[in-house]
């Protein structure tokens, strides 16, 4: 990871988009940053936390996005620039707060929400486009079209936030957030932050208190007036620009990563003389005059943007208000099915859309090309199942859950949540997870299922959540369940890490984001205080864990809790050696015979086990196996053995 706070103004550095944004925030002089991890936004706070002490800023991994944004707002209220980062799922959970802070206004210093969208949902439950939020909640929103902008837009956005007294949003997408590019550094100002919550009662004061959203309609009107002023400002903003001929055959209107794809497409088609690109950086409120000027110069217009037809819809809607004498453009994009309104944009899709509108012939690559591309990694890259790491405690936990539910025999099921363990939808977790929504939803659903016995429902419900998820959004669901006597078992997979997003601390772990000792919050104490029965087990003790889950499931009343405690294997590995020597006795291994049929490599499927088809036996993959020893306990023949290494 590069040093994001290097003192080298004017130099060029290779940063990923998220680091560029973090650098931008430093150059903007933030004093406060809070976030909940979520791909593709996690590296922003992660990289800030590394330099927090040196730069004397406060950085926090918050328990969830809602607390993060409210904490950030407090900094703004007290006169310190604040950055709040989250992924789009997080944005959904803070809508309520956003809808009031747009009315109340912010403090003397700016606050920026950086939201990472994940088109194609590479690492998400959905691919929601965040941009429409800006329109329906009246919030200025910008989106960088390249890495330099990712940095430069930050100071700009703080300027907007403070000049107009409004919270502002920066949207980026995975391909900007996680790709690496060159940026030219600016200067990081030395600021001695002074925080004070001034309590002026005079409405004419710069920040009159109380800070509130009533009278709401009046303040709503006021926010609209602010937005009109922001729009004026955006008309001449250099993040919006046009390249191309004066009167293009086709005008591309684009933003974000669409800008990169559009330039590539025009290059590839050698159509610089025919196609113009209007690249927008300030997406809300839109610079209407600028757009109108460019629309008047082209007949055909195509929109290239990630996910939803946001610009497409807004601009077409806007042209409906043009005078009858104005030019009537032909619009192309997602509504004409030239591009999809789902999944990620690709350079190919953009080229295809353009060639189809302009009726250009273009064979992007020879037909054999893809075959050749696919052949390259063969033999170098292993075919790997989407699964838990070797030695992952989750595999053992789901093994125990599976067996317990099968033994119970009432068709029980798992309501899932968000974390590595989401993979339990598939073979990694033996297909146990049967619902998958957003963070906390599994426990909420379990609450509801658990009340349906009056309608004949008799299936055991097991809500499986991670430790970070527990603190993030499960506690209210557990309170609800205990209070209302809902019948479900909550299983908390406590591996001491927010593993999926990169091991950020959470309220149960030892250190804060600043690397200081944290007050660790005991999840068992919380659960017991709520009034739930709590059992704690080690998932690697399969027998005990299975028995415990079965016992909890069979209790068949009230909300009760099992904590499966075992350190994430990736964390353990960094600190300890392999605990066992694992061996397989080929004479005992039954292979595909009746009595086993490859339980270990067909069902359990730890990547540390290899099926040697020629020999008809299982082998240990010494390189991958972490010697957790769990497979020794599932082998029905005792063929797999673990020998403790002193």
């Amino acid at each position, binding site marked *: 990871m590069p040093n994001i706070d290097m003192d080298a103004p004017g130099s060029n550095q290779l940063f990923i988009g998220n680091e560029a944004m973090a650098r931008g925030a430093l150059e903007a002089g933030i004093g406060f940053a809070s976030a909940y991890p979520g791909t593709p936004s996690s590296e922003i706070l992660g990289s800030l936390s590394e330099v927090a002490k040196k730069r004397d800023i406060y950085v926090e991994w918050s328990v969830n996005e809602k607390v993060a944004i409210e904490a950030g707002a407090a900094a703004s209220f007290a006169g310190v620039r604040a950055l709040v980062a989250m992924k789009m799922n997080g944005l959904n959970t803070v809508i309520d707060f956003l809808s009031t802070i747009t009315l109340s206004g912010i403090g003397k210093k700016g606050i920026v929400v950086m939201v990472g969208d994940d088109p194609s949902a590479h690492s998400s439950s959905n691919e929601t486009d965040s941009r429409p939020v800006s329109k329906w909640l009246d919030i200025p929103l910008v989106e960088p079209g390249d890495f330099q902008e990712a940095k430069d837009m930050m100071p700009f956005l703080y300027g907007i936030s403070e000049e107009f007294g409004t919270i502002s949003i920066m949207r980026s997408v995975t391909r900007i957030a996680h790709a690496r590019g060159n940026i030219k550094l600016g200067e990081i100002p030395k600021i001695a932050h002074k925080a004070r919550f001034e309590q002026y009662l005079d409405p004419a004061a710069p920040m009159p208190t109380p800070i509130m959203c009533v009278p709401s309609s009046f303040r709503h009107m006021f926010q609209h007036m602010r937005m009109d002023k922001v729009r004026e400002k955006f008309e001449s903003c250099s993040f919006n620009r046009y390249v191309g001929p004066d009167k293009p055959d086709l005008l591309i209107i684009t933003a974000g990563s669409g800008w990169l794809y559009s330039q590539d497409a025009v290059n590839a088609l050698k159509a610089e003389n025919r196609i113009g690109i209007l690249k927008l950086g300030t997406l809300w409120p839109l610079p209407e005059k600028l757009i109108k000027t460019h629309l008047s110069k082209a007949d055909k217009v195509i929109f290239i943007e990630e996910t939803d037809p946001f610009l497409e819809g807004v601009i077409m809607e806007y042209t409906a208000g043009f005078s009858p004498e104005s030019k009537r453009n032909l619009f192309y994009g997602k509504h004409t099915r030239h591009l999809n309104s789902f999944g990620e944009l690709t350079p190919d899709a953009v080229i295809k859309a353009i060639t189809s509108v302009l009726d250009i012939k273009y064979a992007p690559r020879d037909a054999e090309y893809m075959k050749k591309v696919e052949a390259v990694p063969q033999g170098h890259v292993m075919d790997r199942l989407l699964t838990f790491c070797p030695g992952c405690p989750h595999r053992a936990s789901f093994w125990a859950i599976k*067996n317990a539910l*099968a*033994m119970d*025999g009432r068709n029980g099921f798992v309501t899932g949540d968000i974390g590595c363990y989401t993979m339990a939808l598939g073979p990694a977790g033996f297909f146990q997870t049967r619902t998958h929504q957003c963070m906390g939803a599994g426990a909420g659903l379990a609450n509801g299922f658990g009340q349906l016995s009056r309608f004949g429902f008799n299936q055991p419900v097991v809500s499986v959540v991670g430790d970070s998820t527990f603190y993030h959004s499960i506690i209210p669901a557990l309170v609800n369940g205990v209070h209302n006597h809902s019948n479900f078992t909550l299983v908390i997979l406590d591996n001491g890490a927010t593993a999926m997003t990169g091991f950020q601390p959470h309220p149960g772990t030892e250190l804060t984001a600043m690397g200081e000792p944290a007050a660790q919050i005991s999840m068992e104490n919380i659960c017991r205080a709520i009034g739930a029965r709590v059992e704690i087990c080690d998932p690697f003790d399969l027998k005990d864990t299975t028995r415990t889950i079965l016992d909890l499931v069979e209790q068949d009343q009230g909300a009760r809790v099992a904590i499966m405690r075992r350190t994430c294997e990736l964390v353990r590995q960094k600190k300890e050696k392999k605990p066992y020597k694992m061996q397989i006795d080929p004479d005992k291994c*039954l292979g595909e015979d*009746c*009595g086993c*049929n490859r*339980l270990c490599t067909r069902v359990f499927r730890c990547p540390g086990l290899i099926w040697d088809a020629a020999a008809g036996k299982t082998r240990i993959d010494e390189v991958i196996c972490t010697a957790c020893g769990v497979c020794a306990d599932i082998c*029905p023949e005792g063929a797999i053995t673990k020998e403790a290494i002193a």
Partner: protein
Amino acid sequence: MVTKTKGIGDLFKEIIDKGLCTVCGACVGDCPYVVFYRGKIRMLDFCNRTEGHCYEYCPRTFTDLDAISNKIHGTSYTGDEIGTVKEVLMARAGDSKTRAKAQYGGTVSALLSLALDNGVIDAAILSKNTDDKLPSGFVARSSAQVLEGAGSNYMAYPALEALNGMPRDSKDRLGIVVTPCQAIALAKMKVSPPSQRVSMENVRLSIGLFCTWALAYDRFFEFIKNNVSPAKIKKFDIPPPPANRFDFYIGKEVESFPLDGIRNYRMSTCAYCLDMTAEFTDISLGSVEGIEGWNTVIVRTQQGMDIVEEAKKKGVLEIKELPAQNLVHLKDAALIKKARAVQAIVERTGDKNDLMYLGISDNLKGKLLSHRVTAQGGH
């Protein structure tokens, strides 16, 4: 009638999910996919094989009765009331301590103790009650341990799971106590021995219990929990007809329930069972109508003869002739069970030629179908 061996999925589809499972345990304990839990056979994972021992040995999948009869008795299946017989007699344990702990005459416990003592077997697979009064399998290696298992628990339990659970390379010679359905499964295992389990050659002595029906573990356990406190129960008993009672011995007291009510808790699969006297064992036994503290004993094989002779010689057993009238009643009861089962099977399949799991010759089919259910018999 399906005669082909299939896999675990079919076992569940055709037998277990259809209420035909006897909980004998033939499909349990041998592989990691099937377990017994609280009275039910459960599948933990799908094993994905199209053929398996679980399906093959199940007493409710196709069963070639001639083949198993030939294996155990050296003759084809006759369809006679009480099967192939060498001798019928009446016996009880010579030792009064054994009798005191046992169900009736203590013949089962006495014979097993003797077999262990004189080295015919090294271990016996029996049932013993858990604290909840649920039967569970265990391996006895001494006469003291045999006595721990004395007494009848009328709930069906997977006796053969305990057999399957023996180490594959075990050299122990084994005795085992089985109900008739378990005896059929065991006989099927002997006909085509599994390669990956404990050797069937090791099973030297099978003692069968007479059985009219057995109680469904899960449902009857609910009944016990709701009506008598399980921890206090010392003994269960179904006194011979015409008592028509089910007795719980609680301390010195006896709490009785009408047998008709208890009958509701029997396993549905028992209705299709042809065998009352455990025909495919070495020795089988039950109570003696009207004579308390004795067992009716049917000796069926040479091994059975040998051990009974030895027991007689050593005074381990007191032996008398079974009164002629008792034998007549026993045969009547056994015949009624056969007739009822065939009738129930035909009702279920709707086809006189389809006798479900029963693999028998057309001649015998006719013989069995001609029995009429007349008198009341058995418990």
